[in-house]
Structure formats: C-alpha cells, structure tokens
C-alpha cells in the first residue's frame, strides 16, 4: 500500500514494535515527572471533589447557586455536558467499526475509556442534585413494603434507565474488546501477581481461531446495538427538557440537537486526550496527523449542524410567534448572560470554521486548541439551556438569574480532576490502544 493511505507510520517495523510501545507505559516500573505531575494535579482536584461532595451531603444543595427559579443550575448542566462527552467513545468504536473505518483502531480503546469515565461523572451529578441523595434508590423498581412503584411518565426515571444501560453496556463493550490485550499483558508481565491478575481478567483467552471468529461476530453485534443506544441516551436526556412546557425547551428539534451536540463535544474531548496520549506515551506511530485531520472534518460537520440548530431556535421563535420564546431569545442576546451566549456561538460555530483550511486541519496543535474551545463552548451551551429558560419563563415575578458559588466551581473542576485521575490510573494499568487491532491493521497495511 502507498504511504498515502497508511494509518500506522513506517516507524513500526514488526508486530513486536506495536506490543512494546503499547505495553511500555504499563510494564515499565518507572514513570517520568510528567505522569507524576499530572497525577498530583488530578489527585488534588479529586480531593477537592470529595471535599465538595462531603460538604454538599452535610449541608444540602443550598451551598450551590441554585435558587427557587433556577432550580437546576450547574449540576444538571454538568450532567448533560459530561454525558455528551461520554458519547463519542462508543460512537467512534461502534459506528466506525460498522462502516469499516480503519482509523478507529488507534482511538477506540481510550475513547471507550473516556466514555466510561465521563458517563460515570455524568451519572453522579443528578445524585448530587437530589435534595435527599440517600433516597436515590427510590427510582429503582424494587419490591417495597409500601407497594410503591416509580412514576414511568417521569423523565427522571427514563434517565435512570438510559444512563444505567449506557454505563453497563459501555463497560461490557469495552471489556470484550480488552480481553485479547489482557491476555497479552498476562503473557508479558514479569511479576507473578501481575500475571495472575491480568490472567484472571483475560479469562483464559488463547487467541484460537474459534475465539477470534466468535469475538469478531459478537463485537459486531454489540456495535450494531451500541449505535441506536447512543442515539437513544442523549435523546432521552433531551426529553428532560423537551417533555416540559418551558419556552426554549419544548422543541421537537431537541433530541437530534442533543445527540449531535453530544458527539461534537465527545469528539472534541477525544482530540484533547489523543494529543496528550500521543505526547506522553509516545504513541506517534499510531495516532498520526491524519487521525487529527479526519476528526477535524467530523468536528467541522458537527459545528455546521450546531449552527443550523441554533438558527432554527431563533427562526421558530420568530415564526412561531410565541411571546415567551421570542422574549427568551431577546433575553439571551441582550440580558446578563449575553456575553456567555456570544461566547457559545463564537466557540461552537465560528471558531471551528477555521477547520475548513487544510493547513489548520493538519496542525495537531491547532485542532487540539479548537477542540478545547469547543468543549468550553459546549459547556456554556448546556449552562445556558438551563439558565436561560429557567431565568425567563412565563411568570415575570419569578424571574431571577443564577450566580454560581465556590462549591459550584469546586464540583465542576473536581469532577474534571477525577476524570483525569482515573485516566492517569488507566494508562498505567491497561493498554490505552487496542494492540490486537493495531497488529491486524499493520499486517494489512504491510501485507505481511
């Protein structure tokens, strides 16, 4: 094959090179200052999160900026944002598998891991937002002496099933793809403890022809289930808003708008993680400029869709003639949140248009920077969906604005730190790239 269509650079000379590079962060006992620095920073932020949650459970949600009007505030916006980030992993893995995109091999493992960690962070926020978090289990249909059942017409109950299914499914999908790599670690690890631990989780995988054939088929079926699942999860999350009667929320565009937004922020996060891993774990032969270029195209497409979605909100507010809808749009453009709203439009729609230029798409630094901007922009979008509508709904006497407190920020940055902390542990314990898929890709590209 010509060098044009290669996804693994010629720096890789044989299959063993792939194994060595991928297992190096795991089986090398000493790690550099970079890992320790990131570990210390993320660990401290995780402690901040633990402190915030402790304070929250001790004092209740009054420690947040939530008030009688903006009852959702940061926690629900953070929930939607984190869950959105948690969508790209399974999508990259499943949709790109079904469409036979070879570049998925370099990204799918850490993208799926990102999904698991981000969805776990997302799942925590609605719990933090409960007035009585210890009654969380009331949402589960379980036999109880009072003879109570969950209210199936409630969007919160749908969320429980969607997010619960999504986290469980993502963990299974991730694990099934991981087993052959655990077998590699079992066979490469030096210490007896490590061999036993990896061996137990490798389930006795031998890589026999029968194993591979069943694995391949099963993995494809899982991918075929994953795609409709991903679409359903953020659609259901959007129903938290769309199933209400609030101005700006009760829109039929919400489910697709949320799904595209989720993929958009998820892909942006994949770029950031890919850039960091590439640099920190020396994965340059596997994560190439071409990977960034194709993701940049996905980001560009999504940014245009987001632009159309925003414009359709304005159009329907005007064309629909609803006074509260029109007032809401006016409020977003001119009210106290206007700077945030302009930033949202700038970050999510305007800045990503730079990716039309091939030179920028092929610059890893530029694509990464734009991705960080997109992630901030998508967070602002989620915040404004919550703040905007709740600040200006039908009852003028209840109009208020949201002012975040220290604890709002502490929990947001704490959750970012915890996400990063989990990732720091992940790269030292499990292979961040799927070795068996890259071996196959390399053999196909080499014709060996």
């Amino acid at each position, binding site marked *: 094959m010509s060098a044009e269509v290669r996804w693994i650079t010629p720096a890789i000379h044989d299959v063993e090179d792939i194994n060595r590079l991928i297992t190096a962060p795991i089986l090398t006992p000493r790690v550099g200052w970079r890992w320790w620095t990131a570990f210390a920073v993320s660990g401290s932020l995780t402690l901040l999160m633990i402190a915030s949650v402790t304070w929250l459970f001790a004092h209740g949600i009054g420690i947040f900026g939530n008030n009688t009007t903006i009852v959702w505030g940061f926690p629900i916006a953070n929930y939607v944002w984190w869950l959105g980030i948690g969508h790209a992993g399974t999508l990259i893995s499943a949709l790109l598998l079904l469409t036979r995109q070879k570049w998925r091999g370099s990204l799918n493992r850490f993208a799926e891991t990102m999904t698991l960690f981000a969805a776990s962070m997302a799942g925590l926020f609605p719990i933090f937002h409960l007035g009585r978090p210890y009654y969380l289990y009331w949402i589960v249909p379980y036999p109880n002496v009072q003879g109570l059942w969950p209210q199936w017409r409630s969007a919160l109950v749908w969320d429980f099933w969607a997010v619960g*299914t999504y986290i469980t499914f993502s963990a299974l999908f991730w694990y099934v793809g991981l087993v052959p790599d655990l077998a590699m670690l079992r066979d490469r690890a030096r210490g007896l403890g490590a061999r036993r631990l990896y061996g137990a989780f490798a389930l006795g*995988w*031998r890589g026999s022809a029968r194993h591979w054939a*069943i694995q391949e088929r099963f993995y494809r*079926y899982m991918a075929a289930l994953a795609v409709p699942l991903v679409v359903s999860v953020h659609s259901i999350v959007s129903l938290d808003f769309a199933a209400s009667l609030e101005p700006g929320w009760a829109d039929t565009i919400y489910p697709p708008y949320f799904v595209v937004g989720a993929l958009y922020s998820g892909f942006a996060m994949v770029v950031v993680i890919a850039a960091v891993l590439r640099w920190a774990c020396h994965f340059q032969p596997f994560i190439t400029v071409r990977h960034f270029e194709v993701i940049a195209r996905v980001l560009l497409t999504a940014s245009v869709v987001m632009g159309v979605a925003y414009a359709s909100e304005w159009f329907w507010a005007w064309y629909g003639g609803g006074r509260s809808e029109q007032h809401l749009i006016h409020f977003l453009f001119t009210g106290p949140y206007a700077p945030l709203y302009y930033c949202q439009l700038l970050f999510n729609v305007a800045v990503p248009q730079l990716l039309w230029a091939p030179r920028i798409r092929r610059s890893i630094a530029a694509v990464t920077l734009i991705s960080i901007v997109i992630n901030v922009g998508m967070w602002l979008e989620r915040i404004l969906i919550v703040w905007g509508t709740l600040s200006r709904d039908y009852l003028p006497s209840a109009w208020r604005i949201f002012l975040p407190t220290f604890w709002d920020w502490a929990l947001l940055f704490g959750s970012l730190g915890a996400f990063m902390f989990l990732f720091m542990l992940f790269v030292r314990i499990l292979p961040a790239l799927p070795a068996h898929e890259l071996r196959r890709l390399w*053999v196909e590209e080499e014709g060996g």
Partner: protein
Amino acid sequence: MTGYFLAEFPTARALVAAARIARQEGHPAVDALTPHPVEEVEPELTRTSSAAPVGWVMFIAGSLGAILGYFMQWFSAVVDYPVISGNRPLHSWQVFLLVPYETAILSAAIAGVLGWMYMCGLLQLHHPLFDARVTLRASQDRYLLVFRDAGELKTWASQHLKPLAVHELRS
C-alpha cells in the same frame, strides 16, 4: 493434552499457507492460535465457529428484555399502583416504549457477553495448550497451528509446512 503439537510461524501469511497445505494433504490442523484475527485460516481447520449462535442468544434475550420492561411498567402503572398523573391514561403506551428500548439493549448485551464467554470456553483460565511456552507468544507476535499427533505427522509437518519450529506439549 498429550498427542498434540504446535507448529510455529512468523507471519499470518505463512500460517495460512501452511494450514492450506496441511488440509490439502489430508492432515488439517485442529486449531490456530494467532495474535489477531486471521479470517482466512478458519476454513482450513477441522473446528469451525459456525455453530456458535451468539446473535440468536442476543436477539432472544433482547426481545425478552423488551417484553419484561414493558410488562413491568404496564403492571405497575395499570394494575398494582395506578396513579393518575396530569390526567394521562394509566396505560400511557407512548412513553412506556422508552424503558423497553433500553432494557432490550441491556439484556441483549448481558446475554451476549455470557454467551460469548460460554461459546469461547472462557473462564477456563488454564488450558493444556498453555503447557507449551510458545503459546504465550501467540498473544503477541507468533502464529501457531495446533495438530493432533498421529504417527509421523510431526516429521511431515516440519518438512512440508516450513515452520520456524515444532513444539510438543509437555504432558
């Protein structure tokens, strides 16, 4: 698993070529151990995976999951704990479709993982094939064919299949 031996190859291509020769010569390999899927080798082996109906397991479990999810909502909302909320019908089938959608996918996935483990014979952490040290390379960079040793087959294999080496299983 005495009575078996392993022929070791450096590449997937060499493995497939050898497996083809072995089958054409009437001594097909029992199994192949490879560090990544090599689809071309399966038709040359005596054991195939075509009898593993993992898709059906998932389909049946998914359907049952959907039915159970729907029944749970109908039973609780209509029979066991009827609450009129916003004057909506007790049997609000439109929104009752959301939970079965999720339970279908969840049950299909869980059943699929169990089926995959069972059909691959996973959870059996040790296998006699691991008695050969070279099996540890099969998860990394070596391609192995497993043969049942009958008569002079080992000598034949090392002469005709041109493996890197032939490994006997320690009993």
